């Protein structure tokens, strides 16, 4: 996914460290600090859940691709074997990008074949992927 957690945290630093022109102080800067505070809260969630979500998603996509290889082509078995070089977010995301590209291609093939059971399985996986990657924004009080 993009932006990555290090991008967000570096960005928060830069947003506060770079001096703003006089006309961008006051209300605008107060709003900006509020958004940075929210980003920090969401970053904590990503630290807690982000690695586990990526490890799970990569394994789940690989399983779907491997299962489809017999019916849809050996190329999907090849993609399913892609693994991250290590547990860093960058390595997990690189593997995830390759696996997701394989999943997109498989889903297109499944739709072309009108294979409804496998289509439903892929759509169910999308729901689980979105849930695993979710960020929970707290209901903030209105001003």
């Amino acid at each position, binding site marked *: 996914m993009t932006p990555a957690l290090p991008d967000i945290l570096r*960005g928060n630093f830069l947003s506060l460290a770079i001096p703003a022109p006089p006309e961008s102080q006051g*209300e*605008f800067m107060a*709003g900006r600090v509020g958004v940075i505070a929210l980003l920090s809260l969401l970053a904590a969630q990503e630290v807690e859940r982000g690695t586990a979500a990526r490890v799970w998603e990569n394994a789940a996509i690989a399983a779907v691709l491997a299962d489809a290889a017999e019916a849809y082509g050996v190329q999907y078995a090849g993609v399913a074997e892609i693994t991250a070089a290590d547990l860093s977010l960058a390595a997990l995301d690189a593997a995830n990008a390759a696996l*997701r590209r394989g999943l997109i291609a498989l*889903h297109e093939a499944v739709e072309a074949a009108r294979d409804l059971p496998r289509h439903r399985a892929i759509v169910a996986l999308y729901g689980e992927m979105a849930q695993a990657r979710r960020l929970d924004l707290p209901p903030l009080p209105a*001003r």
Partner: protein
Amino acid sequence: MSLAAGLESYLTDLWGAPTTVANLSRIPGGASRETYRLDAQVAGETGGQTHRMILRRDPTGSLIETDRRLEFLAYRTVHGHVPVPQAIALEQDGRALERPFFLMERIDGGVVASPFTFDPYGAHAQALGERFFTILGKLAALDHDGTPIRQAAELPAAQDCWRIALDHWAGVIEADEQHPQPIVRAAIRHLRRNPPPPAQRVALVHGDYRTGNFMHDGAGRILAILDWEMAHLGDPIEDLGWAFDPLWNHFDETRVDGMIPRERAIAIWEAASGLRVDPEALAWWSLFNAVKGQAIWTSAAKEYRAGGFTDPILAISGWYTARRHDQILAERLSALEGF
């Protein structure tokens, strides 16, 4: 030259009299353009009148590329029909203030809710919701023949509105995507396989009609509909689908935009527009709008990177809202019967 000095020079030329600028201050909101409030005073003007103004200047990086002339002409088109500030001047070259911009009158004393707050409208939610969807219905009914927007906006055929809109936003994802997005791509394919009925009429579509894009007086009255940067001519159900997106519900699944129940909103819109909401069309445009949202957030993520990670609004758009729309898209896809 400072922004204030640039404005003084520009307004002096525009009005043909020495003009001073005071209280220049950037304000939050309007994520696709830099937005400033300012007071302009013209020397020798009778009564010493202060012109309260808003400056909308092109940013160095933005949520989404939009056409400032279209936005300016949209304000001019709906003024008098929909509550909006009056558009004053448009400058498309960047000479005066380094980047293109336009100026409009400022409406003071209002409140604009953040979409991420809980129950921002309180006891006035019902009144605001009824007015909000009445205004949207009136916009759908507006005869745009011969109006300023027709100088710049293409007029699609009724049966092409969906395809033009989908091609545009699918193209944005194709151009700006930095990490593969299987969920939104599945939604795009579904939309292409299952087109909606033709638009009942080709209307002026606001393009970003939702909570957080209007100003109210805190007592149940809408003062202005804002942020017309995505205005275009198309199927008016598009605006309803965007307004009904769960992203804008203020954590309340029983009310759209945190104001009124969805069925009530539809009834009000139908009465004001003279049109009917076809459930099949609304379902298509609702899924479409989740795609459109994801396209906007995809562009925001790209711009966040291109701009050196310095705009936190782009960060939260490209990160939190992108993931929220993946959830919404996945839920909508799982609710569909077949292909």
